[in-house]
């Protein structure tokens, strides 16, 4: 135990000092807020480490279409390192569009191009996809070949989870007759969120990206839930929204108060889904990175202060990481479960 603690401390010190050195050179004064936000935002490259002011990052492809020149541009993001300009593009350091690629029009205004760059989050999504395929396609193959054999290895580990999603999420919320149609989506969403949550907990490449703590990612998944819910809505579902027999008439006409609220609910539900996952994962990332930032802040007061706070920070980060492991599962489960409940509401027939 003691050896481990020393190792963690040593690693924290090395990382802390080097990063601090880099920040020190660049900005003179460490800005904790910017540091934290930068860590949880998407980026045009994948930062690996900074050692003695020398940055190591994986450059990623930039794909932009200039609105001014009406032309597509493809180049590696290392052309934009350290505020450099390339073909009129550079990374903006001020709001709005802070940290995004921009260009200047003839009047000198900053214009955002159409930006389909393969960013850090896109790469992280692809890594998680490769992992998902690498794990589940061989398992699927084994199931196909030996359907009646007892599960083994990774298959045995994941089968209870799959059964849990099937029995306690899909069947329980959608019903025995209709749940099967929604299983592929529910399983995909669950494992996609779960694996990205876990990868997000890793402090270094190929993890560390804040995928599920990004509004665009959670939004897309929530949009899928919304679309599936809306498409599978039965007559009963729509009737329940626009003319529910449980609601007294004066709430429906002449002023359609309840229908309006119900209709809003259709959009609020997936929105809440999107925000819950985003906020939970982002929160976890921010808290953990803040403890790292704390080391840098204290480092400005000297090595002793940095050393002291390192111990506290590392302990807290370890504790929070365990907490986040729990959150990683719970949030994946909640997203899946609520999606299933919405599907269940959409396909419900008659009254309960």
């Amino acid at each position, binding site marked *: 135990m003691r050896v481990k603690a020393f190792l963690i401390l040593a690693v924290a010190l090395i990382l802390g000092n080097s990063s601090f050195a880099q920040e020190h050179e660049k900005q003179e004064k460490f800005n904790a807020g910017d540091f934290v*936000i930068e860590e*949880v*935002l*998407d980026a045009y490259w994948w930062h690996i480490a900074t050692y003695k002011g020398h940055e190591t990052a994986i450059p990623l492809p930039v*794909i932009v279409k200039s609105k001014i020149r009406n032309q597509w541009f493809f180049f590696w993001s290392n052309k934009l390192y350290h505020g450099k300009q390339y073909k009129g593009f550079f990374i903006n350091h001020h*709001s*709005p*569009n*802070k*940290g*995004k690629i921009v260009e200047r029009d003839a009047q000198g205004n900053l214009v955002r191009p*159409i*930006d*389909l*760059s*393969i*960013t850090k*989050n*896109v790469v992280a*999504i*692809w890594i998680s*996809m490769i992992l*998902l*395929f690498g794990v*589940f*396609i061989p*398992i*699927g*193959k084994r*199931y*196909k070949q030996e*359907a*009646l054999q007892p599960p083994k290895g990774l298959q045995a580990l994941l*089968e209870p989870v*799959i*059964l849990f999603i*099937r029995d306690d999420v899909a069947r329980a919320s959608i019903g025995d007759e209709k749940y*099967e149609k929604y*299983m*592929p*989506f529910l*399983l*995909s969403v669950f*494992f*996609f969120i779960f694996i990205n949550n876990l990868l997000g907990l890793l402090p270094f490449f190929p993890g560390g990206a804040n995928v599920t703590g*990004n*509004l*665009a*990612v959670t*939004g*897309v*998944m929530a949009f*899928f839930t919304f679309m599936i819910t809306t498409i599978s809505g039965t007559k009963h579902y729509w009737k329940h929204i626009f003319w529910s027999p449980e609601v007294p008439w004066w709430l429906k006409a002449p002023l359609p108060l309840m229908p309006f609220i119900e209709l809003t609910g259709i959009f609020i539900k997936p929105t809440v889904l999107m925000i819950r996952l985003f906020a939970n994962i*982002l929160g976890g990332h921010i808290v953990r990175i803040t403890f790292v930032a704390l080391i840098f802040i204290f480092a400005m007061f000297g090595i002793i202060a940095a050393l002291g706070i390192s111990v506290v920070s590392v302990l807290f980060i370890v504790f929070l990481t365990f907490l986040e492991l729990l959150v990683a599962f719970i949030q994946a489960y909640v997203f899946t479960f609520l999606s299933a409940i919405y599907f269940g509401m959409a396909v419900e027939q008659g009254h309960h």
Partner: protein
Amino acid sequence: MELLTPDLGLIFWMTLSFIIVLILLKKFAWKPILESIKQREEFVTQSLEQANQARQELEKVKDEAEKILAQARKEREEMIKDAQEMRSRILSQAEEEGKKAKQRKLEEALQEIEAAKQNALKEIKDTVAELSIQIAEKVLRSQLDDPQKQKKYIQDLLKNTNLN
């Protein structure tokens, strides 16, 4: 604020990637996995049912066997009882017969003895008679040597003999 503004590029790539995830995993993972699990569950249910049936059948067979065994046991007991009865009957019969035979033999022996006795007595009588005659002859002969005596004897005889 950058945190709350979803990036168009990321939305595009995420949508594309997620659709690919859905399609590929549905085709190569979820479908075979769920189908196989279902198949296996059905197989397990079926097997359990079959096992149940087999168990019931076994129970039935066991019951039958028990019945047969009980009957056999009863029969055996009866047979033993019968055999014992027969044995005792035969024994008593034999005893009786033995007794009878003994009696008969005894009687026969007694009869034989009686007969032998009679014979012997007869023979003795005969022998005694003969001997008496011979003795008498001898006595007479010796006594009747002289004619005097003969006369006297005849007179005695005549005296003893009643002339009726």
